[in-house]
C-alpha cells in the first residue's frame, strides 16, 4: 500500500492548533495507563518515603512528630545500621567482581563455534530460570552442616565441618557464593549477546596477522565487549544493593547481623519493628546509592568505554 502523498498545508492556524490538541489527547490516551501507574506506585511512594523519613511514626506507619534529620542522625550513630552498611558493602564487593569474571569466562567459552554448543549455553543460562526462593532452598541444603555437600567434601578431606550459615565469619560469604550462582545466568546471556555482536572481520584480520589467542582476547574481545561489561557491572551493582530473598531464606540477617543487608534492614524495621520512620530513612539512602551508581554509569560509561 505504498502511495505518494503530500500532507496538504492547511495554512489555517486554528486547524493546526486543533490538530495539535487532538494529537496531544491521543498521545495521552496511549500513555495514561503507564503514567498513572508510575505516579501511584513509583513517584508518589518515593515522595512519601522522603516525607516519612523526616517523621517519627506510630506502629501503623502514620507520621506523628516531625523530627527533621533525626532519623538519619540516629541511623549513622546506631551500631546496627553501621553493621548493615558494612554487610551491604562487603556483599557488593564479594558478589559483583567475582560474578562478572565468572559470567565473562563462561560467555567466552560458550562463544566457540562447536557442535552441541547450544546445550552448554542452555546449561550456563539455566539459573536465569531459577527463582530466588527455589535457589535459596537448594543452597540451604548444600550448606547444611550435617548432610550438606560442602561439609561432606570437607569431611572426605578430613577437615572439620563449618557452620556455613550460622558462623558470623562465614555467613555473608556463603550467601554471596549462592548469590553469584543465582545471578550468573542473566549476566551470561547478556555477555554472550555482546560477544556475538562483535564484528567478525576483526578476528579474521587477526587470524591473517597470526596473533596469539591471549592477544586477541586483550586487544579485540575485551575492548569490544566493554560496553556490555559496563552495562552488566551497573546492573549487578544495583541488584546487589536490592538483595532480599536469599537473606530472608538463608540467614534472616543473622548471625549477629552479619548478613543484615540494607533491604533486609528496611524490611525488618518497617514490618517487624514497626519503625517506619527509620525504615524510610534507610530507603532514602538506598535510593541515593542506586542513583549514584546510575549517574556514574552515564558519566563514566560515555567516556571510558570503547564503542565500535
Amino acid at each position, binding site marked *: 500500500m505504498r502511495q505518494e502523498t503530500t500532507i496538504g498545508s492547511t495554512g489555517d492556524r486554528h486547524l493546526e492548533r486543533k490538530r*495539535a490538541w487532538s494529537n496531544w489527547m491521543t498521545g495521552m490516551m496511549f500513555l495514561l495507563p503507564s503514567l498513572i501507574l508510575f505516579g501511584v506506585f513509583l513517584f508518589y511512594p*518515593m515522595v512519601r518515603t522522603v516525607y516519612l523519613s523526616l517523621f517519627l511514626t506510630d506502629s501503623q506507619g502514620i507520621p506523628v512528630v516531625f523530627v527533621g534529620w533525626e532519623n538519619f542522625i540516629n541511623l549513622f550513630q546506631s551500631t546496627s545500621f553501621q553493621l548493615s552498611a558494612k554487610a551491604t558493602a562487603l556483599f557488593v564487593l564479594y558478589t559483583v567482581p567475582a560474578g562478572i569474571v565468572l559470567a565473562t569466562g563462561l560467555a567466552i567459552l560458550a562463544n566457540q563455534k562447536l557442535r552441541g554448543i547450544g546445550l552448554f549455553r542452555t546449561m*550456563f543460562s539455566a539459573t536465569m530460570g531459577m527463582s530466588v*526462593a527455589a535457589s535459596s532452598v537448594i543452597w540451604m541444603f548444600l550448606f547444611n552442616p550435617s548432610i550438606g555437600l560442602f561439609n561432606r567434601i570437607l569431611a572426605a578431606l578430613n577437615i572439620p565441618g563449618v557452620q556455613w550459615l550460622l558462623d558470623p565469619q562465614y555467613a555473608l560469604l556463603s550467601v554471596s557464593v549462592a548469590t553469584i550462582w543465582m545471578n550468573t545466568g542473566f549476566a551470561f546471556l547478556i555477555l554472550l*549477546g555482546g560477544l556475538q555482536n562483535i564484528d567478525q572481520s576483526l578476528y579474521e584480520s587477526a587470524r591473517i596477522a597470526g596473533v596469539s589467542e591471549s592477544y586477541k582476547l586483550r586487544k579485540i574481545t575485551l575492548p569490544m565487549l566493554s560496553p556490555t561489561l559496563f552495562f552488566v557491572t551497573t546492573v549487578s551493582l544495583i541488584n546487589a544493593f536490592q538483595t532480599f530473598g536469599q537473606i530472608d531464606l538463608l540467614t534472616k540477617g543473622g548471625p549477629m547481623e552479619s548478613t543484615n543487608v540494607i533491604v533486609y534492614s528496611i524490611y525488618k524495621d518497617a514490618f517487624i519493628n514497626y519503625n517506619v520512620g527509620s525504615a524510610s530513612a534507610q530507603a532514602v539512602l538506598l535510593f541515593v546509592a542506586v542513583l549514584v551508581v546510575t549517574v556514574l554509569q552515564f558519566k563514566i560509561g560515555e567516556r571510558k568505554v570503547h564503542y565500535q
Partner: protein
Amino acid sequence: MGKKVLLYMALTVSGLVMVFPILYAFLISFMQGGEVLQGSLWPESFSLANYFSAFERVPLLTYLWNSLVVSVLIMVGQLVLCSLAAFAFVFIEFKGREWIFYLFISTMMIPWEATMVPNFQTVQSLGWLNSYAGLTIPFFAMAFGTFLLRQQFKTIPKELYEASQIAGISKLRFFTGVVLPVAKTTITTLAIYSFLTAWNMYLWPLLVTNNEANRTVQIGLKQMQTQEIASDWGVVMAGVVMVILPTLILLFAGQKRLQEGLTQGALK
C-alpha cells in the same frame, strides 16, 4: 584436535558445576528420607512419593494456580501498557513528548525496594491485600519493556503510518493491525521476560499475602522450608522442582530469543 577436546572438557566441567545444584535438587526429590541423610547422590529408585507428600502437606496446587494467574496477568498487563506507550513515543507527535520520555527514563533510577513501605500502605488502604489486584497492578507499567518495543516500532517506516492516516485508518487500527504484528518477535521476548520475572517475585508477595488462599508458590516454598517438614528434604525438593519446572521450560524454549532481546535492550 587437542584444542577441541580441551574446549569440550572445559565446557562440560563448567556446565556440570553450574547445573549441579539444580540436578541435585531433582535427584533428591526422588529419594527416600534415609538416602538423603546418608548423602547419596543418586536415588535407589525414582519414587514419586515426595511429590504426593508435597501436595498433601501444603496446598501446592493453590499456590501454583495463584502464581500462574499472577504471572499471566502481569505479563498481559505489561505487554498492553508497554506497547501502548511505545506506540505513542514513536508515532504520535505531541507537545511534551520528550519530557514524558525522560520521566519514563527516570523511573529506572528508583529502586522498587525504596518505595515498598508506602506501596504497602497504599495497597492496604485500597483493600487489595491478599488479592490478585494487589499482587499484579503495581507492576503493569515498565520502562524497560517500553524502550524495547520503542526500538522495534522505530523500524516501521513512517510513510506507512502517514499513508494509513491519509487513508483514514484510525490510530488504534494501525496499532493493532500493522504495528503489533510487525513487532511479534520482540513482544514474545518481552512476554517470556515478564513471565519469568513475575513468577519469581518474592518480596512483594511476601508483604501483601498472608493466607493460604492467595499465597504464591514462592512464598509456599518459604513456608515449606520453615515448617517442620524442613527436615524432610525430599518433600521440600519436590516442591522446589514444581516451582522451577515452568520457568526452566520457558527459558529453554525461549533462550535464544531472550538473549537477543536482552542484548538489544542493554546496548540500545
